[in-house]
């Protein structure tokens, strides 16, 4: 995982309430190995016609938004299927942050594990940010994980609320499993006692 400390980058508004992970990456692409990259599958059916042509109306097909590294979404973005492919597609496309009022739970967790920073901000702030980004193409957003602050094009700053545990993992590019290994003794102790109570789960 690439460490993320802070970043100022172009942002694009992505329309749609309850935009589910089936739309972020349609199921038929989930068969592929990650080694070929998942960026080409991002929002595939929203981005391309069935013939494979870019749909000019889709925002990530327009300049300058196609270079966006931050997406600004509507409520419940990434709901639905647990497919981590949705996060792979975003990351491989170069997206490093997603700002929205709320996210699908599993999507949010998957993002944290891949160093994609999910930022929850109040609905009205996100709505006006999306308008600003439409009105001022090329506007940038700063995500500062170190200072736990998000700076918007209108100059306002907002607290970036993120669990300190995940913040540290992302800033160091650390995988939480490294930390888990250090608790192996606790895990074994727990397990010994626990499995005596519930021996039938281990047959």
């Amino acid at each position, binding site marked *: 995982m690439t460490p993320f400390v802070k970043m100022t980058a172009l942002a694009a508004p992505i329309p749609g309430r309850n935009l589910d992970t089936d739309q972020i990456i349609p199921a038929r692409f989930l068969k592929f190995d990650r080694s070929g990259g998942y960026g080409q599958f991002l929002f595939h059916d929203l981005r391309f016609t069935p013939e494979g042509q870019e749909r000019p109306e889709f925002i990530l097909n327009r300049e300058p938004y196609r270079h966006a590294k931050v997406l600004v979404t509507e409520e419940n973005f990434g709901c*639905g299927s647990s497919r*981590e492919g949705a996060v792979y597609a975003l990351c491989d496309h170069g997206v490093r942050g997603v700002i929205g009022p709320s996210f699908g739970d*599993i999507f949010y967790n998957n993002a944290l594990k891949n160093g994609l920073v999910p930022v929850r901000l109040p609905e009205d702030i996100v709505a006006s940010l999306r308008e600003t980004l439409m009105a001022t193409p090329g506007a940038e957003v700063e995500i500062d994980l170190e200072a736990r602050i998000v700076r918007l094009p209108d100059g306002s700053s907002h607290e970036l609320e993120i669990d300190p*545990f995940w913040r540290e993992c992302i800033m160091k590019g650390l995988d939480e499993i490294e930390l888990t290994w250090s*608790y192996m003794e*606790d*895990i074994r102790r727990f397990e010994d006692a626990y499995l005596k109570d519930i021996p039938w789960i281990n047959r």
Partner: protein
Amino acid sequence: MANLPHSAAPRTMFDKVWDRHVIVARDEGPSLIYIDRDIIHEGSFHAFADMKRRGYSVRRPRQMFGTPDHYVPTTGREIGDAATAEIARMIRQFDENMDWGGIRSFRLRDPRQGIVHVVGPEQGITLPGLTIVCSDSHTSTHGALGAIAFGIGQSENMHVMATQTLWQARPKTMRISVSGTLARGVHAKDVILAIIGKIGAGGAGGHAIEYAGPAVRAMSIEQRLTICNMSIEAAARCGMVAPDDTTFQYLHGRPFAPSGEEWDRAVAQWRALPTDDGARFDTEVALEGHAIAPMVTWGTSPEDTAPITGHVPDPAGAPDAGRRESTAKALNYMGLTPGTPLADVAIDRVFIGSCTNSRLEDLRAAAEVLRGRKAVVPAMVVPGSTSVKRAAEAEGLDRVFREAGFEWRESGCSMCAAMNGDFVKPQERCASTSNRNFIGRQGPNARTHLMSPAMAAAAAVTGRLTDVRRLLN
């Protein structure tokens, strides 16, 4: 820290199960919790690839189970029946990963094969009080037996396979109480669609749901599984129903359930799980059971529900600009005109299946409507597991479906997610017992209306969305 002191304060069922699994509680942030079971399907291949790359091994293979479902052919039980070579490769890769990890699995030709969320309860792998994960969002299904069960991604899946634990933040709790009794022709699917319609697709975000109240208590396990299955469609972390005698009767004698002296010990533990009187939930929601009508969805989110007696909504009537736009977009995709009575909407095809509604009782409910009638559109039944298929055949349900003109297929996810080559054609309108009416879910540009198996059967014989109560005598 392994044994947290049991506080005297009344606790919810969720709290009891959670507390029992906490290995490390930190002052802030996620706790390290013990995971009892991880269920694997073909899509888990990323996690295996990661494990191999890092040189990890599966720590406790006895606590893992695998079954292929998403990619399996429903026309036959040979890998060669797979729709494409790539799909066949997914099934083969699954078998290889199971061998590599030493994980017990119910493969394509195994009589125990089926959809992960049908197989778990059916085999007694799913038990009250356990923590269960699977890299699939509908893992919430298993909570119907009183387990904490939730979907995870592939990174988390790898973490569980390697350590048997997971870092998780404790969710808030929500109780959804359904009072009274359900009317004839109204099923568990109608109840959960009514709930999601009421609280919204984001309504239970950050919460663990407990379904309670007389209408839920009166439900069979299969009905409770349907309800818990769709918890994720309201954005919940998981859904649960308190274990009771119905649960114990269901589990007794299942292959992986405890037996003999262990059974008695287990039941004694399980009886202590239900929420204590006076325990507080962060959020409470109440519905009147008798007021629920058979439901259908009209849009592209499971929150887009209406009783079958209703109409296609008018975007102009939406509460805010955002909803106006999303309603208009949904209707455009669905090819529906505002104000149309839902019972006038003609359909092109029917799918009965998926982890929501493919169990024996679901098939019985559909067959009851179909007996002596004929489908007027293409229709198929995909049983949730090979055991369900055989049990249905033993009582002659396959004949009822076939005589009504339905295709009777082998078990798997099939047209629910259209990953195995079974799909709904572009612009086709499908009456489906699955759980997601998302854009493109059943195939590019496919239009999905979610409903109960009885309602899907009614739609099949009339060729339109239909109030099943009209067909019951």
